[in-house]
């Protein structure tokens, strides 16, 4: 087990280093950053000043090494636009994105698990097909359009929920629902297939033979086994949701990390852009690592390979 953990952690570190390189390279795609920062009206001297001030006159490899060294010590650089440390900017907006992601995940789990169980218990029936249709629809739904549609009908016409900002808790409901839609299909399919397998297994037949109640069989015996992969995938889905929340934050004007990134991309504020890419990737890497370890803990067969 220790060997497994060490190997997985080492791999995660390698992935992180690669992402670090990619996020650095990404922001140099525009060519000369100093020129785009200085703006169209700037003179050659202005550009030179900016280049010096931000250390952009150094060779690329030197810039890269200093960015990696700084990032490793938690210093993500300063934003050109806000004139503040990037780490502070992200930290200030993280609660919004994190709350949104967790709200989305809770809504997704509360929808996907009961529906998946119901579908599995009625395998092959019309109800099963109808529930699986929800997954197909969820997969085809453009999230930004669903967001705007809900804002019009639920927010404006019915006046049920706020459509922008998160001054009160209910501001998270609509964006949370939209974000949940992206995770529901995968979680529901997984719950269903896990439950179908579990319900067909020998220990469920034994439980039936013992005369246990239907509720006890489904919830205490079958679900316990079907839930493990769902928990692992839920962690990975949370990573995807945090990365994808940029669209939803833009639709509902939530001032989270995604909104910060969108703004910075439009304004060429590349220290922020590369840090957010790195930050979201790190969250994803940590979540998948945890999911892997959890799986290995629950299923010893996985530790061998």
């Amino acid at each position, binding site marked *: 087990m220790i060997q497994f953990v060490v190997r997985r952690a080492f791999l995660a570190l390698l992935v992180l280093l690669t*992402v670090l390189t990619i996020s650095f390279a*990404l922001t140099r795609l525009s060519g000369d950053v100093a020129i785009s920062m200085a703006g169209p009206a700037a003179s050659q001297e202005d550009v030179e000043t900016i280049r010096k001030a931000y250390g952009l006159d150094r060779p690329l490899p030197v810039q890269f090494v200093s960015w990696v060294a700084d990032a490793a010590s938690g210093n993500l650089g300063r934003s050109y636009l806000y004139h503040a440390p990037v780490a502070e900017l992200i930290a200030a907006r993280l609660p919004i994105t994190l709350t949104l992601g967790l709200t989305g995940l809770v809504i997704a789990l509360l929808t996907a698990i009961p529906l998946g169980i119901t579908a599995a218990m009625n395998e092959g029936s019309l109800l099963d097909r109808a529930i699986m249709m929800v997954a*197909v629809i969820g997969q085809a739904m*453009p*999230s930004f359009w669903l967001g705007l549609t809900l804002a019009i009908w639920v927010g404006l016409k019915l006046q049920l929920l706020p459509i922008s900002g998160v001054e009160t808790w209910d501001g998270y409901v609509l964006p949370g629902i939209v974000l949940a839609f992206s995770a529901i299909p995968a979680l529901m399919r997984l719950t269903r297939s896990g439950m179908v397998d579990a319900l067909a297994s020998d220990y469920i037949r034994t439980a039936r033979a013992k005369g246990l109640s239907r509720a006890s069989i489904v919830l205490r015996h079958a679900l316990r086994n079907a839930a493990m992969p769902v928990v692992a995938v839920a962690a990975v889905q949370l990573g995807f949701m945090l990365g994808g929340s*940029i*669209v939803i934050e833009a639709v509902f004007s939530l001032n989270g990390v995604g909104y910060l990134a969108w703004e910075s991309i439009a304004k060429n504020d590349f220290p922020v852009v590369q840090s957010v890419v790195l930050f979201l*990737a790190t969250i994803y890497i940590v979540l998948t690592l945890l999911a892997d370890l959890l799986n290995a803990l629950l299923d010893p067969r996985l530790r061998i390979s």
Partner: protein
Amino acid sequence: MTVRRAFALAGMGIVGVTVLLALFAPWITPHDPFAQNLEARMVPPFWLDGSSPQHLFGTDQLGRDYLSRLIYGARISMIIGVLVTVCSGVIGTSLGVAGGFFGGRVDAVVMFIITCRLAIPLILVALTVVSFVGSSFAVVVLTLGLLLWERFAVVARITTMQVCRLDYIAAARATGCSRTHILLREVLPNIAQHLIVVATLEVALAILLEAALSFLGLGVPSPLPSWGLMISEAKDYMYFSPWLIMIPGTALFVLVLGINLLGDGLQDWLGATRDA
């Protein structure tokens, strides 16, 4: 099984109609999709009061015929979907087949590349690339094509591994066939049915992502009638004229749904022929 077949046929119908609309757009659109008419702005569609028989789906905030833009938008969605899938299909299949066929170190490297790709926040990186390189049709296609290959790689890798354990591969090896021959003539045709199913899903995903990028202002540039861009441009008027975003949004949803249903149908159908 009849329900599934009905869904698959519906999907085929939706995709078929969209392809025809996209192909014959110049001949069937009633108006020029770029022609502005500031005297006839935001004319409502035919089911609302004040509609005009000239503009079945109304006009947008610049007086452009919405139906014509919608039909040309189908063209953009389909072209992007197909080009991105071809690009990502080549990358993903090459990686996956190499990993599955050679195993060992090659496979470890392929797995590592797939893991790295999954760790990268997709939309954020696509937005960054499009913004920093400059938004154009080709940049959007290339960016998405270079990012969306991971499902191809995962499926190609697993299925290649399964195929390589079968007797006919051993037989081909024993008769002295070259590696290239085995890869191109034995492995690839036998994993093709899985890749076709992945391809349909990727077309749908690429169309959704292009719309999301265009919606955020970093997809295909204006005035091209991309459905995502149409929604983005109509956003400011949506509370007064909801149909401005409902029409392109519904088109997007129905097309992606149709492609996914077709993909599910293909999966059943190709799976069945494999067993026979």
